[in-house]
């Protein structure tokens, strides 16, 4: 061996060289393939200082470098960074993505995606970008997400741009449109691109074209993009407005748009005039100069009028103890020496003109859409009133019985729905049970009321009103005793949640559609029963002439009982419907009783079409008044009632009045 060791043959020498070379190669690869710095890592290392101590102001270059690199894994790194998932290895300062694999947190190479070791407190340090930095990263990421394979990601990117549009998005979005395969997303992208062009496009003509393309579009996003363009502020200069300003309008001081005081205080704010001495200033100046109970040549006790104070202040000013008060003439002179104008913050007048024109066209279509929305609102309110009043139209309209407890029947129906939901947890099923059950309960209550009270008072209508009022307060208090005073929920099934959105302005909730349908159903049911059944025939006969009907073999007692029960039953069903969107309390009925009576009276007693017309008018009117004075539903109700009172003057028998003998019955 020694021999061999001694005599190193050239072959072995080569072997040694090869071995050492292999060792080096092995050593290189063993410390990780990551050690061979990949392109992403190279960029990260280049901006190492920025990454280690990031701030919103400084991270721009590294994000741009990553974004512009076109590397496939660059977005992954950005995402990891944004999610505080980027780590720096302590021993060599290289960056890795943290990822949980097999129960431990591993360092993942930024370029290859290889697992290179476990994260412990000693091996790696987490990068902690602050909120500002993460937002900047997020907007950069949008560029990548726009081209992401998953449509949901692309949609998320569009939403991100919508929330926070930036100039960098313009080019990225434009570039992504051609590759977009989903037609919906494609059109959304195109729309978003035009919106971004309005904001950020440098070329004036392209910008104006983008603005013009939105003529008549009532989307909220369009208005959000256009309104900043036409925002103005009041400026004041001596002489003519400078040409550098995009002047919207020159204002005359003292006009309605620019009151004199406002104009002068604008002058003062701009440093072009001295402030006027107002009452408070006079007062404090006088107080400051009181000497031995007098000031400005007057006794303090005498200064209880403005004139006396002015005189004393003038004296003070003469003595040089206070600044001289400006006269009206001084103010006028200062105002006339300056020009007041509204200027756009947007410098290009072509853009602002286009924006103004498009906005006014938008406002026109907006008005139309709001009108449609109002119509829907009115219709839905009308159907609620109709539903509440239809039972009353039967008991009051057909039978001539004033039932003040009608509201309490509505409440009873709503509470029936609530009780059913206590036992049947499935909301759809419970609704299906509650509707007929509410009808049955209130039908029974109505029949009981008719049998015990109302039948004795058919010839004394005013006393029916009073007696049923007694029933009403007793029922209300009973409900309070049973269910307590707090509101009880009546939950609508899921499929009634949400709203049908037609555009950004017009929408209607499914519950309201359901109530509308229910109202139509009951109208149809009523007509069917009254016109097509034996019962309806007998009801009409008894209504028209009870004695004659009796002599024809109809039992008026029975008919009256059934009619009253039917009217009350419908009130119960209305109660379930109303309970779905209103709070169920013992006072639920009270809120509808007066409106219901007005609906019947305005529409015309004794006629279902009258109730329909009355509900439409009252519902529509109330919404229209609310629209004129949106902040104030109380005022809307007040004016509506006043209108009803006046309306009754001119059509005492309602919109659809019975004529002839029936009217006198």
């Amino acid at each position, binding site marked *: 061996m020694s021999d061999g060791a001694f005599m190193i043959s050239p072959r072995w020498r080569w072997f040694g060289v090869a071995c050492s070379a292999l060792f080096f190669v092995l050593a290189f690869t063993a410390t990780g393939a990551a050690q061979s710095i990949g392109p992403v890592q190279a960029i990260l290392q280049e901006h190492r200082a920025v990454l280690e101590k990031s701030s919103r102001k400084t991270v721009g270059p590294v994000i741009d470098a990553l974004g512009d690199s076109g590397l496939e894994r660059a977005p992954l790194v950005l995402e990891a960074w944004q999610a505080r998932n980027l780590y720096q290895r302590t021993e060599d300062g290289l960056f890795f993505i943290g990822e949980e694999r097999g129960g431990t947190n591993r360092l993942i190479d930024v370029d290859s995606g290889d697992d290179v070791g476990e994260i412990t407190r000693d091996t790696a340090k987490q990068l902690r970008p602050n909120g500002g930095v993460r937002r900047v990263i997020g907007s950069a990421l949008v560029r990548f997400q726009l081209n992401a394979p998953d449509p949901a990601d692309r949609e998320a990117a569009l939403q991100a741009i919508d929330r926070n549009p930036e100039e960098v998005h313009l080019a990225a979005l434009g570039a992504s449109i051609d590759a977009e395969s989903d037609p919906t997303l494609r059109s959304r992208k195109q729309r978003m691109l035009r919106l971004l062009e309005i904001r950020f496009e440098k070329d004036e003509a392209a910008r104006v074209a983008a603005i013009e393309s939105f003529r008549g579009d009532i989307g909220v996003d369009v208005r959000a993009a256009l309104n900043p363009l036409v925002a103005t502020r009041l400026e004041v200069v001596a002489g003519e407005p400078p040409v550098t300003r995009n002047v919207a309008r020159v204002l005359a001081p003292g006009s309605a748009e620019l009151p004199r005081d406002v104009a002068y205080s604008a002058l003062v704010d701009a440093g072009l005039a001295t402030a006027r001495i107002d009452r408070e200033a006079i007062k404090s100046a006088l107080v400051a100069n009181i000497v031995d109970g007098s000031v400005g040549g007057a006794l303090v006790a005498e200064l209880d009028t403005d004139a006396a104070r002015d005189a004393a202040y003038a004296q003070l000013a003469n003595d040089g103890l206070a600044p001289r008060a400006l006269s009206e003439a001084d103010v006028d002179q200062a105002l006339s020496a300056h020009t007041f104008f509204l200027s756009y913050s947007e410098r290009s007048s072509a853009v602002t003109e286009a924006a103004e024109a498009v906005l006014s066209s938008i406002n026109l279509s907006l008005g139309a859409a709001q009108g449609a929305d109002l119509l829907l609102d009115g219709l839905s309110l009308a159907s609620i009133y109709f539903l509440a009043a239809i039972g009353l139209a039967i008991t009051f309209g057909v039978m001539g019985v004033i039932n003040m407890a009608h509201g309490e029947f509505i409440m009873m129906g709503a509470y029936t729905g609530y009780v059913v939901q206590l036992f049947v947890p499935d909301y759809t099923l419970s609704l299906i049970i509650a509707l007929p059950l509410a009808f049955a309960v209130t039908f029974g209550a109505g029949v009981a009321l008719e049998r015990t009270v109302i039948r004795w008072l058919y010839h004394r209508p005013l006393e029916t009103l009073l*007696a049923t009022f*007694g029933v009403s307060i007793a029922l209300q208090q009973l409900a*309070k005793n049973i269910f307590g005073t707090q509101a009880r929920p009546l939950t609508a099934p899921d499929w009634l949640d949400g709203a049908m959105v037609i555009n950004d302005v017009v929408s209607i909730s499914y519950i309201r559609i359901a109530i509308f349908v229910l109202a139509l159903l009951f109208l149809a049911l009523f007509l069917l029963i009254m016109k097509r059944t034996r019962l309806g025939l007998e009801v009409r006969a008894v209504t028209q002439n009870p004695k004659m009907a009796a002599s024809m073999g109809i039992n008026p007692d029975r008919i009256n009982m059934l009619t009253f029960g039917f009217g009350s039953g419908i009130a119960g069903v209305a109660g379930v419907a109303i309970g779905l969107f209103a709070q169920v309390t013992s006072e639920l009925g009270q809120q509808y009783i007066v409106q219901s009576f007005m609906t019947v009276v305005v529409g015309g007693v004794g006629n279902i079409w009258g109730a329909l017309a009355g509900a439409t008018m009252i519902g529509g009117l109330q919404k229209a008044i609310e629209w004129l004075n949106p902040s104030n539903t109380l005022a809307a109700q007040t004016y509506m*009632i006043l209108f009803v009172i006046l309306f009754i*003057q001119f059509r005492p028998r309602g919109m659809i009045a019975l004529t002839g003998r029936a009217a006198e019955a």
Partner: protein
Amino acid sequence: MTALDTARPRRRSFLIDNPSVMIFIAALGVFTVVATVLSEGFGVGLLSTSLVKTLGKTLCLCMIAIAMDLVWGYCGILSLGHFAFFGLGGYMIGMWLMYARTETIVIESLANAPLPPTEQEIIDAIGVQIFGVVGSSDFPWIWAFADSLAIQLALVVLVPGLLALVFGWLAFRSRVTGVYLSILTQAMTLALSLYLFQNDSGLRGNNGLSGLQNLPGLDETPQSIVSIWFLWASALALALTYLFAAWLVSGKFGSVVQAIRDDEARVRFLGYPVEGFKLFVFTLTAVIAGIAGALYYPQAGIINPAELAPIASIYLAVWVAIGGRGRLYGAVIGAAVVSLLSTWFTGGRAPDIPLGFYTVQWVDWWQVLLGIGFVCVTLFAPKGLGGLVDLFVDTKRLAQRRPETSAAELASPRPQPSEN
């Protein structure tokens, strides 16, 4: 009004024809004297001040009940809006009370200012004090006369009167009658209360006017004394109202009005201006209600739009119906009995009734009892509590008079109030 009475020359005072008036006024006088003697302010202190106030308020409620009886029991107009007039009267006097008291407070607080305040400064400070709660400091135009007691007192009469005049003129002119009129009056009071609920109505929205029990300039006088003064004033007003109402309904005017109640068309064919009569009664009762309200709310201390809610006016009808309409003392009895019972039962003083399985608490069950009782009165005793008086009087007359007369009298009972 028997045949015997009408045969005589009508030279006698109506008081002799209507002994109930003298009895009522005497009873009211005795009540007032007893209450004063038992009070804390002037007497032995058996009645607490709050109880004296409750009694005083009850007298005011009796007053509006008389108004209601006139318009409903005698004229047949079931108004469900008379509490609106009551509330308006309260608001009118409340404006002055609040303004004047705030003014004294403001002047006191500004007395130590370095400069004596100008008039404008005082008014501004009052505005901030009163309207700060609704986020404003300017006086609305309706407060233009709030600094003058005389004008506000006139408004107590004028505002409800004018509202009733306009409303009544519109309603009666177009021949709105019966239940339609009731619903319309209810709509009126609902509209008014909704309007007053707004903050920009100028009357402090749902905060209402408060601190009305403190009379301006009388800070030194304890409430026990003030409450007695108001009791006297309320009793006097009630007595005068009763006297006036009794005089009004006992004469020819009263006969026409009752005839309108019984058959409006027939009275019109006889040549009477029915609308004029109805309008007069409606407006007059609104004025009485306004005066009653102006006396009530300084004793209550606070007024807010909830007082004008339609339910209050319906309760008024309930009182009159339970007391017995068509007779003035009936209205007074009904208002006094039902409102005092309500106060007693809902005040939590009434003893609970243990039933073993359930304890009846009157706070919860009084409304139920009232409702059912009301139904029963309507069904079985249309004459109300006042009908009890008839039983007593008729028995006495039966004993005094010859059988023929009383038989004839019984055969033609006084016409029942009935509407169509």
